[in-house]
């Protein structure tokens, strides 16, 4: 949101700016598009079918007719009690999956009483410091009948352990659990910043969760390899897909190193992206990504099981494509992005609320976001037949071009020495910062049109929304109060014993840490205590600061 107390020089500049009258000729990734695509410009290939290798047209033969995508809104704030209430509201509105937003102390591995955590408790998500809070968060919600997605990375293994523990306590068999932990640490180093440990032990922890999940929670996705955050940080659709597939390959290599069978665990890998505004580029990004992933697994790893080759992904419609200027326009943006996600064949969709550019959504804005998906699903008719854009000369041409460009990004990272090296050196981080800077300059100059912000403004436009979300200022105090009560009432000998066992296991490179973490959760050890124990063995990531 901008400060409207005085008109700014650049507002006046934007208002005077000549309004654009023609569309741009290149996609935001820089692919120059011909005015018309003719059949001879499209590569000659055998007709492709959805549900068949290489899955360009989708992973299911019947698209959404067999099963509609999961409508999954990201939500969570304040205390577990407040979030639990919001979840029940969303489930009553027809939402079919939960998506848990966690606060930064939980994401970075600090207890709510830690000095660095104090001002952030319950701010951007719910505080989940021990099993006691998880029991409140999921109270009255059937974990066997709902899928739950956690946007959690640095402490993903711990939150996953906590979810298993809360299911144990509720008497829900682990094999019935469905859902996802994001658990993609590589992109945290590059863009989102909730890293804790150095790269190599973090990769080990991720392999632990995937291998454990395959045995114990076979319907649960232990990783969601995410391009969303590098995209929102500034890179293009092509780079988003390229960096994400490169990260996916790095996880596969780590799992193979740990003795995993790629044919089996590849079935449990899933992906996560942003959908921004360039409609056809977004649709073709997903078509190209599906095809390329299947090809890479076949050609590089010899994977044969079609289920293991299927590129399954969820998306967010919104993010940095939404702006605070004339905020109600964001409803339209999200509607268009939602359609691109459906045409691209997403398995789960989160539509951001129009006010999400600057606040936690209100109940009103959150409802419009859900309704958007329901309108797209049940009124627009676009979900009726699978891959409805397949066979369009332009869509097939752009899919091929995107595939080529994405492969170039993967090649460039491999030429540098691989993802781990690129992250440890800060090379990828620097590239993304430069790209973000370019994107900002293009918006400032008016070259990239953002309606209501840099073009088509009114001098007296109101960039506010009618309803502001207010966090309860006492939420943090209540979280801390509950935390202290748990710490005072638990069996401290059991906590110490479980943490010592975790420490010993962490010292060995080939021990799967998941059972130890679940034991810690059952003993009501806190997230901060588990993280401190692992840090004592592994140290912390040292951020390479390069500009």
């Amino acid at each position, binding site marked *: 949101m901008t400060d409207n107390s005085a008109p700014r020089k650049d507002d006046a500049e934007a208002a005077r700016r000549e309004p654009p009258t023609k569309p741009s000729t290149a996609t935001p990734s820089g692919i120059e598009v011909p005015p018309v695509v003719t059949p001879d410009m499209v590569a000659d290939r055998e007709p492709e079918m959805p549900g068949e290798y290489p899955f360009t047209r989708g992973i299911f033969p019947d698209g959404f007719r067999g099963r509609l995508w999961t409508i999954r809104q990201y939500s969570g704030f304040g205390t577990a009690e407040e979030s639990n209430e919001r979840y029940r509201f969303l489930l009553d509105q027809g939402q079919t999956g939960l998506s848990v937003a966690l606060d930064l*102390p939980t994401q970075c591995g600090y207890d709510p009483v830690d000095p*660095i955590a104090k001002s952030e408790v319950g701010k951007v998500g719910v505080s989940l410091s021990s099993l006691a809070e998880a029991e409140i968060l999921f109270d009255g919600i059937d974990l066997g009948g709902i899928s739950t997605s956690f946007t959690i990375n640095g402490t993903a293994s711990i939150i996953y352990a906590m979810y298993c523990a809360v299911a144990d306590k509720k008497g829900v068999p682990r094999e019935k659990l469905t859902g996802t932990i994001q658990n993609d640490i590589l992109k945290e180093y590059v863009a989102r*910043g909730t890293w804790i440990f150095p790269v190599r032990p973090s990769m080990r922890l991720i392999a632990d969760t995937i291998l454990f999940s395959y045995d114990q929670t076979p319907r649960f996705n232990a990783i969601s390899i995410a391009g969303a955050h590098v995209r*929102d940080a500034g890179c293009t659709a092509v780079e988003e897909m390229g960096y994400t597939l490169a990260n996916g390959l790095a996880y596969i290599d780590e799992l193979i190193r740990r003795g995993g069978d790629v044919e089996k665990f590849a079935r449990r890998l899933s992906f996560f992206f942003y959908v921004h505004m360039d409609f056809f580029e977004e649709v073709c990004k997903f078509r190209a990504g599906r095809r390329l992933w299947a090809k890479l697994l076949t050609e590089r790893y010899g994977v044969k099981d079609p289920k293991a080759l299927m590129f399954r992904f969820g998306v967010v419609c919104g993010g940095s494509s939404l702006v605070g200027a004339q905020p109600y326009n964001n409803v339209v943006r999200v509607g268009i992005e939602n359609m691109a996600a459906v045409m691209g064949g997403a398995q789960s969709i989160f539509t951001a609320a129009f006010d999400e550019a600057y606040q936690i959504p209100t109940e009103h804005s959150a409802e419009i976001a859900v309704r958007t998906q329901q309108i797209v699903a049940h009124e627009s008719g676009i979900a009726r037949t699978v891959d409805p854009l397949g066979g369009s000369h332009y869509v097939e041409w752009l899919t091929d071009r995107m595939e080529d460009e994405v492969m170039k990004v993967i090649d460039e990272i491999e030429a540098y020495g691989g993802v781990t090296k690129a992250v440890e050196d800060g090379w990828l981080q620097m590239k993304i910062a430069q790209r973000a800077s370019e994107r900002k*300059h293009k918006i400032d100059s008016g070259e990239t049109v953002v309606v209501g*912000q840099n073009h088509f403004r009114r001098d007296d436009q109101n960039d506010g929304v009618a309803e502001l979300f207010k966090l309860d200022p006492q939420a943090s105090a209540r979280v801390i109060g509950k935390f202290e009560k748990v710490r005072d009432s638990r069996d401290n000998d059991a906590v110490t014993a479980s943490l010592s066992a975790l420490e010993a296991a962490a010292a060995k490179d080939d021990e799967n840490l998941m059972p130890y973490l679940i034991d810690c959760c059952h003993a009501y050890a806190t997230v901060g205590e588990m993280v401190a124990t692992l840090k004592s063995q592994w140290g912390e990531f040292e951020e390479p600061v390069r500009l």
Partner: protein
Amino acid sequence: MSLNGKRILIAKPGLDGHDVGAKIIALALRDAGADVIYTGLRRTPDYIARVAVDEDVDAVGLSILSGSHKELVEETVRCLNELDAGDIRLFVGGTIPAEDHDELRDAGARGIFTAEMTINDVVAALDAELSA
């Protein structure tokens, strides 16, 4: 418009990991002639104040997108004052609702920058403050 010879610390206080804005501004200020130091993520106000003093900067820019701007600005001002460095100009950028701007100014922020402002505006505002 130039920031030649000015020393500016761009800092990420608290746990927020969104550093795109901080990096865009750091690059832009460097392009405008300033000597820019960037702290990297997850720094305490106390650490930021000490670096500001050690590096003898003219200004500190805090980047905050987690909603904790009030607490973190107040705490940074307190730490700077404790080190007798109240003359270092403090700016804040990020996701800062308009209704909080007055309170942040009262707490000591000399400028508040949000994502929709142009880089030129930000540089001009710093230039005006630092040459005053």
